[in-house]
């Protein structure tokens, strides 16, 4: 017997019936595209195209077009890579970790968050590919394929290769997890479709799903095991990303705190991105009864927790630099704070450590405007975090004669814009043609958490509910 705390708000408000759930979500898919959507989509495609021109130019002429130099060999490319991968983590956290913890509030946000994960990982993957310079022969450098380029096999001692396996596995497993979740909803759309093309299209995607009890039973088992597999997977991905740095001997990188610190930062930025996107979807698709203030508040609380972990990690790093007695390490951190890139460091500190603390105030964490603004601030801060770690550690290394500054070229900037174009193009396509909320899962938690039942439960303790609204409940 499921017992729900009486103080907990209902997950689906507005007295929605199960039929309303189908209606509200499917109508977005079935209706012709709105003007607003067309405008946003065109904007994204244009961004992608303009960014693509610069990316094409960069691939044609080589990555010398980027502002990299001999000392700073990694800058915006890897910053953007880590940033995008980090954003992806929230989707898996919502769909897998919260599933294992039986957090039912995740049901109405997991679909969009998982879509975000997949698109963010795709955006991340373009950076290492571009950085190869000649990506068309890159398969020999990243996959264990027999070749005659030199050392016969890829190097399994290198964290960069671990990354290939981690990101590859993460992307494909997330994609499968997401798709399996979509199948029952595609069947719902198929059975509602009144034109042949969409019935064929969604019928094809729904794999002939009929919702039989036997299939559901296996489906539930598969979802649970996939969640169990994805949980250590998502932790391993950012751990391995952090090892790209931590296994090197650059001051400011060579620390054991990196794996947990990166994972917390990833969840932090991912939840901020989920909030940015969900607030827009909720408004445009009028989903206020599904993504309620309760959901937003929960996510804001996760942002406080992970933001504080990140803050502690910054402090710990600083302390350990002093405590270790290694002068290079100490210099790296002093240089971060007061060196020529001081503004990046303080932007990171303000956005990541100070701004999320505002969410301790209930008024702010339940305000849509504040949440939206702070979610963007957090992502700016997280981009600066990666920039600070990467560029300030590299630009002044062991040899003062090679100390330089890094400044991005137009190709650096436009490649970043390109990744945004890719992300939003995919996301808008998803938001139009796929159900943005997992209907089957929302329906499965509907009974114990809709507002009518909720009021009924309240009648057990509160006699002030009007008699006609009372429903008999056997607890």
């Amino acid at each position, binding site marked *: 017997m499921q017992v729900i705390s009486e103080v907990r708000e209902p997950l689906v408000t507005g007295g929605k019936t199960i039929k309303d759930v189908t209606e509200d979500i499917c109508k977005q898919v079935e209706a012709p595209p709105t003007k607003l959507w067309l405008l946003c989509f065109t904007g994204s495609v244009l961004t992608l195209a303009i960014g693509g021109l610069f990316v094409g130019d960069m691939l044609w002429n080589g990555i010398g077009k980027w502002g990299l130099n001999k000392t700073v060999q990694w800058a915006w490319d890897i910053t953007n890579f880590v940033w995008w991968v980090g954003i992806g983590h929230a989707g898996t956290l919502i769909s897998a970790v919260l599933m294992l913890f039986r957090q039912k509030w995740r049901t109405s946000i997991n679909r969009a968050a998982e879509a975000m994960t997949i698109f963010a990982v795709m955006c991340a993957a373009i950076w290492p590919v571009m950085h190869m310079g000649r990506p068309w022969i890159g398969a020999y450098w990243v996959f264990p394929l027999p070749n005659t380029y030199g050392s016969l096999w890829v190097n*399994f001692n290198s964290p960069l290769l671990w990354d290939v396996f*981690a990101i590859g596995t993460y992307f494909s497993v997330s994609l499968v997890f997401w798709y399996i979740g979509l199948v029952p909803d595609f069947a719902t759309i198929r059975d509602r479709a009144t034109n042949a093309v969409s019935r064929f299209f969604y019928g094809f995607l729904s794999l002939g*799903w*009929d*919702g*039989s009890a036997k*299939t559901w039973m296996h*489906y539930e088992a598969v979802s649970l095991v996939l969640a169990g597999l994805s949980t250590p997977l998502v932790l391993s991905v950012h751990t391995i990303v952090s090892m790209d740095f931590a296994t090197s001997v650059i001051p400011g990188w060579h620390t054991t705190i990196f794996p947990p610190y990166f994972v917390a930062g990833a969840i932090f930025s991912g939840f901020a991105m989920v909030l940015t996107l969900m607030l827009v979807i909720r408004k445009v698709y009028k989903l206020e009864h599904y993504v309620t203030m309760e959901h937003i508040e929960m996510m804001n609380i996760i942002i406080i927790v992970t933001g504080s972990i990140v803050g502690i990690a910054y402090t710990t790093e600083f302390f350990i630099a002093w405590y270790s007695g290694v002068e290079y390490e100490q210099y790296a951190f002093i240089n971060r704070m007061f060196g020529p890139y001081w503004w990046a460091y303080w932007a990171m500190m303000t956005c990541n450590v100070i701004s999320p603390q505002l969410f301790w105030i209930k008024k702010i964490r339940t305000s849509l405007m504040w949440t939206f603004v702070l979610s963007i601030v957090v992502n700016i801060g997280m981009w600066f975090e990666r920039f600070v770690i990467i560029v300030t550690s590299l630009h002044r290394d062991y040899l003062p004669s090679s100390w330089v500054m890094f400044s991005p070229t137009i190709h650096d900037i436009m490649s970043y814009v390109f990744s945004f174009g890719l992300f939003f193009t995919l996301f808008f396509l998803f938001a139009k043609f796929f159900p943005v909320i997992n209907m089957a899962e929302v329906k499965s938690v509907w009974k114990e958490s809709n507002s009518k039942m909720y009021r009924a439960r309240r009648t057990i303790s509160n006699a002030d509910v009007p008699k006609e609204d009372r429903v008999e409940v056997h607890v």
Partner: protein
Amino acid sequence: MEKEKHYLVAVFDDQDDFLHGVEHIRHAGVKIQEAFTPYPVHRLEDALGYERSLMPVAAFCFGALGTTFAITMQTSMMAIDWPMIIGGKPFLSIPDFVPVSFECTVLFAAFGMVGTFLFSNDLKPYKVPKIFDIRSTDDKLVLAIDLAKNSLSEDQIKMILKEAKAEEVYRKDFTEEENEGSFIKYLIDLFNNGVTRSSRQLS
């Protein structure tokens, strides 16, 4: 095998009524062909008397295969086929092989299990779903009872279904063609005149 199939379809609205209904129906000695629901109903598999899903076992086997594959691959490449000194590490540096072994385990387990799931439930893009009641992917919970497999008469079963609080009970017959849905036929029908009686009319 019979060419035509005759079913009784019972439609329920509430999941608790449905669960109790299923228990009542099975208790009365009626064999249920299958239940169709728009969302997973917990404990329904127990009410219908299904065996536990063996999907986790498939995941374990494929996962073990993945680990074996990864360790074999890394050992044979790094230590046997082309040993190279990298950073003064031993050729067979097991700790370095852990991340890739873990990732391969997860990859094999996930894909193997999902593949098993799709295969064993016959889910494929060109499958023609056999739909008893179109509302079973929307909001209603549907039971299908194969009349040929029950010794009770149709009227007796109808009575039992009504007793079990079914909202609606009706008879549904499948012709041989509908029973063994052909994808080609489905496509032709779809673009000619809309599909079978079970589906919504195309506009």
